């Protein structure tokens, strides 16, 4: 349920980033891929791939491009991320950073290859791919930092220190 809610939120954020040109570089960011990365902790690789397929289709819809290649690329990225995380047992900040970079890179590469194989004109080239990988990776880094901060905030150690200070 939380994965579905996260996916919906990510889609909304991505839609907002692409619609409101606050900063054009953020338009390349794909928050939905972070939901796929996050699901790799709980779901099996096949389920992660299905989730990546849905996320990719949502990205295609939001970008207004040919529907299909993004789904296939999302599925491939989800399967790859899930396998890599399980293989190397990634935890903590490394989980988010490696997962987001890997998902963005593999998804963009597969999408670009599929689009080119269909003879369609991609809406962005290698620069756009780099931008998507960089912004998504940056977002993963932020999520990792936020997770670390949240873990520090709710840690028993901090609670004991606050208790000692109040006395």
């Amino acid at each position: 349920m939380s994965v579905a809610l996260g996916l919906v939120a990510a889609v909304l954020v991505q839609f907002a980033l692409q619609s409101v040109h606050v900063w054009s570089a953020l338009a390349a960011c794909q928050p939905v891929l972070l939901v796929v990365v996050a699901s790799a902790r709980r779901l099996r690789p096949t389920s992660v791939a299905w989730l990546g397929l849905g996320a990719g289709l949502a990205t295609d819809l939001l970008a207004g491009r040919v529907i299909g290649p993004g789904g296939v690329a999302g599925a491939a990225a989800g399967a790859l991320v899930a396998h890599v995380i399980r293989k190397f047992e990634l935890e903590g900040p490394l989980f988010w950073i490696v997962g987001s970079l890997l998902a963005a890179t593999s998804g963009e590469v597969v999408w670009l290859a599929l689009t080119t194989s269909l003879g369609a004109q991609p809406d962005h080239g290698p620069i756009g791919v780099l931008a998507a990988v960089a912004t998504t990776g940056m977002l993963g880094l932020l999520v990792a930092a936020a997770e670390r901060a949240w873990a520090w905030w709710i840690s028993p150690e901090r609670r004991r220190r606050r208790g000692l200070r109040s006395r």
Partner: protein
Amino acid sequence: MARFRLRPATALVLACVGLYVAAAAQVRSGRGTALSLAFDAVSTPPLALVAALSSLWDDVTSGRHDLKTTLGDVRDLRREVAELRQSNQLLAAELAAMRQGSRLLAGLPTLSENASVAQVVARDLFVTHTMVLDRGARHGVALDAPVLGETGVLGRVDRVYGASCRVQLLTHPAAAAAARPVGFDAEGLLEGGDQPRLTGLPPYTEVSAETAVVTTGSEGIYPPGLLLGVTGESHTEGLFTSVKVILAARPAEAIVVAILPAGRGQP
């Protein structure tokens, strides 16, 4: 009943393939969608192959039919050629016989009035020394009728049937004819056999080689003056001179012969 259960991974792969095909159907180029182009690219070679195979099959069928027709024509032509060859052989043999008969009658101007021409049907030159002619009693052939070839006397009729007769050749051991060398008054007896000879000539008669030997008609069978052969080596045996005779007639080459009326000799 077998139940088909789709595994999630397989379903995922199928979904991805379906998405790719759907995307191909969306992408448009100048000549149509990418899907239609891909379908054309994939389906054109098999269709061309099927068309080529169909054309090849038509050619093979047509070729087989043509081959069958041609073989039938060749068979008919071969049969026709064989018939023509046989007919040609028969005509050639008939022509040769007619030529020989013509030469035969031309060589016997005095005898040709009463002579009848016959064709040789069969011959046995080595065992019975006879030949069979296609003329018999029905055609007026009588026993002891002289038979002449193109180059001389062949023999006499020794058996008469209804439509054929048998000729005893001069090479028969029992054959004989009264004869004399040309230029001699002395008469001898030509005895047949493998080596015919003229016997009964006076002793020490000098007969030069290559002298023609003709009939005298004394035996009552052959008319006088018919060529029997030419002389060879002569020698005296006892009281008489014997001369080898090389027969003029060649029974092996005789196709048409002349049958003279019987009893025209001078006994």
